[in-house]
Every structure is written in C-alpha cells, then in structure tokens.
C-alpha cells in the first residue's frame, strides 16, 4: 500500500485511514532504527532535498537521517548557502532543484502556504516540514506515533495542547490529526494566543491551565517564542510561567500516568519545569527518536516504493 498523494502538505485533508497507514508503516522502520546496521535499501537511487528556509536543527537532522537510513541521496539547501540570498524566488529555486531530478523536496519555510505554492509548481513530491503558523504534519504524526507507542488509544483520548496556539503549526496539525482519530482536544493559553474560531476546528478552548488539565491523558506543551513578549501577547515571562507553565504540581491534575510532550526546543522553567521535562511522564526524547522512524515511513510512502 502507498499514499495516493503526490505531496504531504497538511493533515487537514488526510483521512483517518491514511494517518493510520503512516503510523503502521513507521512501525517497521522503528524496528530498523533499533538494529545494529540501521539502513535499508528502500530508497536507493532516489534523491531527497532538504530545502530549509528557516533555521532548524532537529527537523532537518531527523529528515536527513531518515532519508539516509533509507539509502536515498540527501542534499541540504539552506538560504545562507544557496541563491535565495541573491533574490531568487522560492519557485525558481525549487525548479532548479527539480531540474537535478530531486524525487522528494522537504520544505521548511516561514510563510504559511509555502509548501502548497511549491507543490503546485514542481513535479517532485513535496513534504511540508513546517510552513509559518500553518502546519507541521510530520511533527504531529510523530506525536501521534509516540502516544500510540505508550499504548493509548485515540478514540476518546483527552489531550491538552498548552501555549501559543495562534502561532503554532504544531498545534494546528495535531488538532487536525487527533480529532480525525476520535480524540478530544483542548487548547489552553492566554486568550491573546488562542485564535478566533478554533472551536470550529474541533478543539475546545480553555484559559485556565488547571481546568484544562483535569482528566487528560496527554499534555502537549508548545514552545513559547520569547520574542513575542514585545507584541502585547503576554506581560512578562514570569507571569506566563506562573499561569501556563507546567509544574509537577499541575501534572497531578491530569489523569494518573498522563504523558508530557513537547516538540522542542524547550524553555526550561518557562513553559515546562525542569523536573517535569526530566520526569518519567516526559516522552520528549521518545518523540525525537520516533521522529526518524515516522519520517522514514513518510518518505517511503511518498516515494511510491514498495
């Protein structure tokens, strides 16, 4: 089986079956990443280009490792080292990459819709590795994989997504995916960071963290962009941490055994207390490990390889 899609741009149009297929495909690659020789020939002769217009270490490295473990040839493009600084448009850059027979382009861009714009202009498959505040589909898929790995089932699962939901692509992708699989999604943060109409996407908005955490099995923290303080979104980091920081005390509001997630990089002592980040309930490092397996699965499915 393969995904009958040229591109993976957003989780909004995916069916629950397609999401499950990706998670199941990742299972077999998770096994590969545990071997002594962590490499399979599935994508031998294929070319994967990481086109990252925004700085990223973790996602780019994860994609690079995933592609290499599938034996693909991998090229990394970043604006500082490419012709983007010379004024070339996104589409022209991509067409040049395509002319070098790239099979898959993995795009990270600061503008919402960049992946969709690119996908319309090139024949290569495009995987969205984060576009502005819009979506980060592979992050949500690895989050789902991590939840599932903990033996939790999605139907009726209660998940709280905490922080700056307005500016979070991770939140949007997770809301789409989790609600499709039958989970109950709560978003919580200061009203300045909860976007208009979020309920129409299927998430319930809370402004009080303690209320939102009651009875949840998954706590998904979002990174606070510290520079947003100057944008009148919150008064001080101190007050934000007091109202929306996840402390050990607060974890107790959730269901016993609830897991704590974070897409990283974490601000210790801001959105998450150090002892929570390092606690047994934290699955933050599992998310990173699973990221490689899930991205291997996605690359494999997108390449149409069987």
């Amino acid at each position, binding site marked *: 089986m393969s995904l009958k899609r040229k591109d993976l741009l957003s989780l909004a149009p995916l069916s629950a079956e397609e999401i499950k297929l990706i998670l199941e495909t990742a299972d077999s690659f998770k096994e590969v990443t545990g071997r002594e020789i962590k490499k399979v020939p599935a994508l031998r002769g294929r070319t994967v280009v990481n086109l990252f217009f925004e700085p990223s270490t973790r996602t780019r490295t994860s994609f690079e490792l995933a592609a290499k473990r599938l034996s693909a040839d991998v090229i990394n493009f970043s604006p500082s080292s490419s012709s983007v600084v010379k004024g070339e*448009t996104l589409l022209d850059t991509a067409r040049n990459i395509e002319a070098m027979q790239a099979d898959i382009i993995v795009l990270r861009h600061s503008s*919402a819709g960049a992946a969709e714009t690119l996908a319309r202009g090139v024949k290569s498959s495009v995987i969205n590795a984060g576009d502005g505040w819009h979506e980060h589909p592979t992050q949500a898929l690895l989050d789902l994989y991590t939840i599932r790995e903990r033996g939790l089932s999605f139907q009726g699962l209660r998940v709280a997504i905490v922080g700056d939901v307005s500016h979070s692509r991770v939140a949007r992708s997770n809301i789409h995916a989790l609600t499709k699989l039958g989970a109950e999604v709560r978003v919580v943060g200061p009203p300045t960071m909860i976007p208009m109409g979020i309920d129409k996407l299927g998430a319930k908005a809370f402004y009080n963290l303690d209320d939102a955490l009651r009875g949840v099995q998954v706590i998904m923290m979002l990174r606070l962009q510290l520079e947003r303080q100057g944008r009148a979104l919150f008064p001080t980091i101190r007050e934000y941490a007091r109202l929306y920081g996840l402390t050990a005390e607060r974890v107790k509001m959730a269901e016993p055994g609830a897991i704590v997630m974070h897409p990283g990089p974490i601000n210790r002592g801001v959105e998450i207390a150090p002892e929570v980040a390092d606690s047994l309930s934290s699955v933050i490092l599992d998310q990173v490990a699973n990221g490689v397996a899930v991205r291997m699965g996605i690359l494999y499915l997108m390449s149409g390889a069987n």
Partner: protein
Amino acid sequence: MALLIEGGHIIDPGRFNATGDLVIDEGKIVAIGRGVKIPPGAARVSAAGRLVVPGFVDLHVHFREPGYEYKETIQSGAASAVAGGFTTVCCMPNTNPVNDNQAITEFILERARAARLANVLPIGAITKGSEGKELAEIGDLRRAGCVAISDDGKPVMNSLVMRRAMEYALAFDIPVIDHCEDLHLAEGGCMNEGLISTELGLPGIPAAAEDVMVARNVSLAELTGARLHLAHISTAGSVRMVREAKSRGLRVTAEACPHHFMLTEEVVRGFNTLAKMNPPLRTWQDVQAIKDGLRDGTIDVIATDHAPHATQEKQQGFTEAPFGIVGLETALPLTLALVEEGILSLESAVEKLSAAPARVFSLAKGTLQPGADADVAIIDPQAQWEVDPGKFRSKSRNTPFAGWKVKGLVMTTIVGGRVVFEAAGSA
C-alpha cells in the same frame, strides 16, 4: 463630425431612461431623446438592443506610473479603462515618487493627454510622501488638477494630522479619502481574521481594523465638516456606521468594490494569491451588508480599486505576494450581476458607476445632458463571455475572476466625442 447613436436604451441616471437617440457633436452631447434633430452629414451608429449610458467614472485606480511601469502605465491603464466602459478614472497617489506635489500631478496629466484614451484625474497625497506626518501642498495639488486627496494604502494613523487635513481641505472644497485601516490592528495580516485564517495559519486582519478607522473618520468629519469619502468599505460595521453618519446629515460618502460584493474569504483557501487584497475578502455576512448598503444608498459608488501587479509578484507565497487585483475590465458584468440578483435596478447600477461617483468628486461627468462632454459607453447587456485575463488591455493579469462566465459586454466607448474603444467583432 456629428455622431448619431440610434435606437438604444438610453439611461442617463435620474434624467432619462427610455429608448431613444443620442446626438454628439464637437465633443459634446447635443441632443437626447426621441425625434431629435439630426445634424446634416452625421455618422449613424445603430444601438438597437444596446444600452447607451454615460461613460463610467472610477474613483479608485492605481496606474503605477511613475515608478512601477512594469505593472501598469497610464497608457495601458487608460486602455484597460475604456475597454471596461470607463471614460474617467481617478488615480491614487501611491506611485514612486508619491503624487504629493504639483510636478507629479502635471506629469500624470501630461501622460494621460498623450494616451488620448480616458480622462485620467489624479488624486493627491494628504501628507508629504504619504508618511502621515506633514500635510502635502494641498492647495497646489488642487490647482494642478487633483480632484481629491488620499494617502490610500498608508492611512493617516495620527488623528490630529487627519483632523488638520480635513480642516485644511475645506478651503478648497476637496474631498478627503481614507483607506480605513488601523495599521496596528492589521499589522502583518494578509487575509480576513476568522475561521479560515485560523485554519490556514495566516496572520489575520480583523474587521475591527477597518471599523475603528471608519468610526474615527466619521467623528472627525463631524468635528470639521469636511467632505469625507471612504474607500472600498468591506465590513458590516462600516456599512452600519456610514448609514448612521448619513442619517445625521454628515458629508460622508462611500464606495464598494465588485470583489467585496461578489466574493468571500473562502476564495483564499489553497493560498490563492489572486484572492489577496486589502481590505481583505470578508465573510458572507459582510457581503450581505455591502449589498444592503448598495441597495439602500448607504454606499454611493462602485469603484474598482484596480491594482495591477506582475505575474511573478503574485506567484510568490501568500504572505509575500502584494495586495490587489485588476478590476476595470470586469466591473461592468459584476455590477450587472447585482441587477440580475435584484439588489439594484439597472438605472441605479449605471448610476453607481457614473453619475454618483461624478457627484462625489464634483466632476462634470457621468451624465448625458446636452452640453456635457460626450463620454459615452454602449453596452450589450445580454452578451455572455468568459473572463480571459490574457485578453486584458491592462499590463497585468491578476484577477480572481478568470474563467468566470459573465454577462454584459462593452461594445463601444466614446470619450469627448471620439470612439476610443470598440469590442472585437462589433459593427
């Protein structure tokens, strides 16, 4: 040479609405009606089954010259205007350099004369460089030929400066136009703020960004007694406030653009940059309010906000692409759609495109009264056609209406008694 336009359905809003003949001589309308005296040797044009109306007047276009000639020139813009039945257009000052002084105004008028197509009337800047700080030489701009003042896409945020501009404009009886947008509320936004912006992760522009400025401007118009014209209103709140201001007798007028009564924010889905304009496409409720405003006269004028941009600019990502669409060559059929829908009578549709805008800017245009300049459009109201941007006279192709099947085609456009446009295949 005299010209007789025979047997058309003539609409001169508020004056004449019947089948008849129109006689033009020496650049002026000389007779309108039935059984008119025909000058000897007059050329005859049959207008049977056609509408004969005053050439349209557009209070809001961007012709990009000087500075951005790759998007549009005064020549190409005027060609686009007459192809859409517009014989008079008022061009916004956001050129490079900004039209904030007599020299730029004279340059624009000179280019327009050279083009010999439409009447192109400049709008001067309110403040120097449209920077919102010091008043431009409004007296000089008026004397040089500017018909109104506006800082257009850079609304005057400082309320004291706006107050002074309104007061100062009183000396010249010149309308003050504002593009109502609180730049702080709108900062970084690129579409209407709401469910769709949330879903697409695009920074939003709330309706309140327009509404608070409409409220401010209405208050300042009341304080100063100025003639305030509100450009391209797009929200239910704006319509409500303009209605209220008019009911109190304030000198406030408003325009709406076809895209704001034909399209909603839904069109943005898929990150469609041809649906990116400012003010942004709003919700269904806002569209209904705009239609209500047009119907009850709250909105005086239909204007295009013709905003040409090069293809490569609109091919950028949604957040990077510039705001705006071209509108001159699609305004007529989109307005006639309101007639089909029963929102406007045919006469009031013609009025909102001709007599009303002329009145708002005190232009001796938009009428077929004997003695008036012979600016006339002949229209086939039944002709169906498909919008093909490749055939636009404008230099730019940025329209969300490509491929639309529309009704109502401009057959002939006459400016100052001279035929400046004829549709392909028209006799």
